[in-house]
């Protein structure tokens, strides 16, 4: 019995190594010269080509602009999708209205249709609206997330009605109830949802690839894909782009991780 603690710690440390090891290698590979990326044995210590690879990325894809684009897209999408989800989740959890169950079922049922098949109808629509090659074209389709609405509904359902009623008796309108009670009380689950949405927005690839036309609008995953020509790919740069992509989401997770876990607890475990 006594040895269980250290043994478990060791096993978890192993899992940690398996999970984080590839990132360590990625960070190391991103500092190598292109021709050393495929050397045997693989380089395990940082090389001296980080700045050179960074300059190369700045020249080939305009790294700063691309990062800005990705940040705008993911940031706006996060604020928008969280707002939509909180509003709808509140309605589903705390109000009775005609069509409630039908709409909820419809919303969740679209999860079974693969996204790939929706690309062309959405593209046609974006063309009609004249939005192709704009931030909006990438942001808008991500604003309604069935999973987000589901998560918010689950979380808000467990909120006591008395709390809301007390505020309403005091004469607060629904917006004030939302702002002063619903949102503060559910801050952890909102943080969890925000992280999910940001992650999705930051990493999304196939749709932005199709919706964005000009290199000044590219997001990081799209720009990374354009680095892959036929036989001339600079792998050190590609790997550096991959490493850079991981940094902001990791930072955000570090900031939000306490809230994230209690948020999952509040959202996903309630029936």
């Amino acid at each position, binding site marked *: 019995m006594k040895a269980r603690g250290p043994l478990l710690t060791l096993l978890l440390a192993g899992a940690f190594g398996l999970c984080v090891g590839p990132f360590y290698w990625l960070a190391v590979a991103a500092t190598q010269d292109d021709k050393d990326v495929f050397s045997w044995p693989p380089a395990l210590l940082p090389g001296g080509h980080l700045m050179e690879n960074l300059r190369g990325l700045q020249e080939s894809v305009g790294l700063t602009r691309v990062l800005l684009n990705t940040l705008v897209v993911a940031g706006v999408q996060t604020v928008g999708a969280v707002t939509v989800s909180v509003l709808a989740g509140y309605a589903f959890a705390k109000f*009775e209205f005609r069509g409630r169950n039908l709409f909820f079922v419809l919303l969740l049922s679209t999860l079974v249709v693969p996204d790939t098949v929706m690309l062309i109808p959405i593209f046609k629509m974006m063309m009609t609206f004249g939005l192709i090659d704009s931030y909006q074209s990438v942001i808008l389709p991500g604003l309604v997330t069935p999973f987000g609405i589901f998560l918010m509904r689950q979380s808000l359902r467990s909120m006591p009605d008395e709390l809301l009623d007390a505020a309403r008796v005091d004469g607060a309108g629904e917006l004030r109830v939302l702002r002063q009670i619903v949102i*503060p009380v559910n801050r952890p689950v909102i943080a969890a949802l925000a992280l999910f949405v940001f992650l999705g927005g930051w990493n999304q690839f196939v749709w932005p690839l199709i919706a964005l036309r000009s290199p000044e609008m590219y997001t990081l995953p799209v720009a990374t894909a354009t680095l892959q020509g036929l036989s001339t790919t600079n792998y050190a740069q590609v790997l550096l782009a991959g490493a850079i992509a991981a940094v902001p989401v990791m930072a955000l997770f570090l900031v939000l991780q306490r*809230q994230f876990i209690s948020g999952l607890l509040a959202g996903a475990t309630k029936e």
Partner: protein
Amino acid sequence: MALAPPPGPTRAAGAAGAAAPAAVPPAGRRRPARRRQLTRHSVPYLLIMPAVLGFAVFKAYPVADSLLISFTTGNDADSHFAGLANYRRLLADPLFWTALRNTGLILAVQVPLMLGLALLVALGLNSTKVRLRALWRLGVFVPSLTGLVAAGVMFSVILNRDAGLLNWVLSLFGVDRVNWLGSPVWARVGVVLVITWHYTGYNAVMYLAGLQGIPTELYEAAMVDGAGPVRRFTAITLPQLRPILLLTVVLSTIGTLQLFDEPYVLTGGGPDNATLTVTMYLYDNGFKYFDFGYASALAYALALLVSVLGIVQVRLMGERR
């Protein structure tokens, strides 16, 4: 469920406002007075309006449009109605069945493997005997932060046969170079490994959240009754985790049946179709062969399958009381 507010430091540290619900007994779920509902009847409609609009435009319309396309053949000017021809063709297409078999195989191996591992990791992370829990928790979650493109470039090099990190690590243990991605069997293993790497931590954190929501009194009572660790796990932990287990099983099943990212970036569905999945084949038909009618039919055949499987899972796991 719980009579006391959930224990655990994470919950208490949530937010300043979190103190508020604790003050009110959370058990009661009384409906608001009927009268209030009537006078406020337009509120819920206003609240869901953004969701309804967004849903109509970006979900319902594309779904309906592509469903219609699945009954047509040809493109552009000479597209015409073809009834069920695409669906009939699908039944006779050996590649569709290969893709379905591969997807089923990955599902049967990968989902139990990943969720089992995730549960083990979560149990470890929840144990008070373990040191540095916050660090391990952060580490195992990190892979789920990576996107398709980054994971693709990373693993196509790590799994490289002659210069990849994985084969180098294996060589330290005297294992010969494995032709990851290059042989039909190992390519499947490679894809399963990468998916497991990618999503185990995410599921583990979900389970961890669930574990932390189980009231400690339940365990204390069981200890008093003399229940051992195995008995406590089967009698308390598993039943208490049931809702979250169901959620992860359903989400992982949907995710695996629609598996696209990993084969797309790692194997292209090869070698010799060993890792061809239904969505991969769908993508090829739409974007390489320009056969959108057939691609859409593949999508809806898959959607039907996902729905049936999802319903079966909810029935099996959801109604056991």
